[in-house]
């Protein structure tokens, strides 16, 4: 009688490349030992069913800040794109100009921001080619992006970004925010991501209408510094962009100073005499 215990199928030869059965056994065992690994991709459709999209963000940027000031609008963001916890791209540009009037800054999935940049380049290209003296205003760019983000949200396939749109046209400053589900609003100062929690209270306390460029930049740098202190996915290398009557410009990346020399920091909390705390 054959034994009732199962033995694994033997490969046809002990040397040389594995047989299909050999490979199948390994992967079968693998699948058995890792039950949380589904046999299909993350968002595989049911057989014959509708396709789901909503992918998850992979390469991500963190907060973007924006304020209105005397000459127009200023945006700021750090130059980091993270790959999960890994600080992968430390020179990533998350602020962009759209024609002479508008700035757009993005947090969230960087590939989706690159796609948005292409869409905005199409718009500015059209403006240039029409050559009729009219260019899209910051408010129009904002409304366009709101429509795009909301429509993608309705299709359950969002562009996974949190955008700030700032600009200056015909003597008027504009600043608005659009998120990945199409929530859109405007204000005198705004922040996305961690910035909404950490930078907004600082801005609420210190922002004044008609700040000078130097003051406005210092305020933004102070916020970016706090974000570097307290956001795991932030970097101390940043960019600032402004939109004024003279046009739009994004600065080169530069490093902001940080303070680690407070006396209370230098105290060792782990001494025998202490409470063992941090």
């Amino acid at each position, binding site marked *: 009688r054959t034994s009732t215990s199962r033995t694994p199928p033997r490969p046809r030869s002990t040397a040389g490349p594995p047989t299909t059965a050999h490979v199948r056994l390994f992967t079968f065992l*693998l699948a058995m030992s890792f039950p949380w690994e589904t046999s299909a991709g993350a968002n595989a459709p049911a057989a014959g069913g509708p396709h789901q999209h909503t992918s998850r963000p*992979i390469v991500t940027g963190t907060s973007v800040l924006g304020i209105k000031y005397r000459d127009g609008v200023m945006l700021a963001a750090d130059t980091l794109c993270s790959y999960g916890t890994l600080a992968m791209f430390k020179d990533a540009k998350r602020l962009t100009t759209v024609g002479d009037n508008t700035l757009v800054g993005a947090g969230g999935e960087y*590939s989706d921001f690159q796609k948005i940049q292409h869409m905005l380049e199409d718009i500015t290209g059209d403006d240039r080619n029409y050559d009729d003296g009219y260019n899209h205003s910051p408010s129009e760019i904002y409304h366009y992006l709101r429509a795009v983000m909301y429509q993608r949200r309705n299709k359950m396939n969002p562009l996974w970004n949190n955008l700030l749109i700032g600009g200056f046209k015909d003597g008027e400053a504009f600043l608005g925010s659009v998120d990945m589900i199409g929530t859109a609003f405007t204000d005198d100062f705004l922040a996305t991501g961690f910035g909404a929690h950490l930078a907004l209270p600082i801005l609420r306390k210190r922002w004044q209408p008609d700040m000078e460029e130097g003051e406005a930049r210092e305020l933004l740098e102070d916020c970016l510094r706090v974000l570097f202190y307290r956001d795991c996915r932030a970097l101390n290398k940043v960019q600032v962009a402004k939109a004024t009557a003279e046009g739009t410009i994004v600065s080169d990346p530069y490093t902001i100073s940080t303070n680690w020399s407070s006396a209370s920091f230098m105290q060792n909390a782990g001494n025998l005499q202490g409470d063992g705390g941090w």
Partner: protein
Amino acid sequence: PPPLPRDMATPARDGEAATGTTIMACCFDGGVVMGADSRVSTGTYIANRVSDKVAALHDSIFMCRSGSAADTQAISDYVRYYLAAHTTEVGRAPTVKTAATLARRIAYENKDQLLAGIIVGGWDAVQGGSVYVVPLGGTMMQMPFAIGGSGSTYIYGHVDAQFKEGMSRQEAQNFVKKSIAHAMARDGSSGGIIRLVTIDANGTEREYIPGDELPYGP
């Protein structure tokens, strides 16, 4: 907190071969050096110990592949085809940026279905040597050097410490060889031999470093 990227070493579908890998590309003055290990694993079994993960897209443009072997082979086939058609139409050699953009388009538009981390590098008359990285999700970034694959996590410190701007051809080759060897030494999903491709204005030169002559390890 955001979810971590999928572990590259675990296959996306049953039975699928994954290139748990170390890939790298580095610009030098006048060209680009590209390198990779040679291990292809299905779970814990090494399906191919001498694979070639540096795929030619054109005479002077190559692509390092990491992630799902099937996905990256398919992408490189498509990019090779599109690039050949583009070259015929435009009547001159394609640029590295064009090749990278084609790879990025495919990776981005199919981001839900693909598991592919790609580094495109080569020489063209516009920029000289250049390196573009297209990680999961379809972002595209130009970099002075790039590392990828599961083994890359072990050598981020090493490459940050050792890289310098304006390396010579020999220095860049040694940098790539040494970095990949260190990753192979510690990453279970990387190993075997190192294949190096050096591309400059005069053409390409392939080098094969056997597994018992690595600069470090295994």
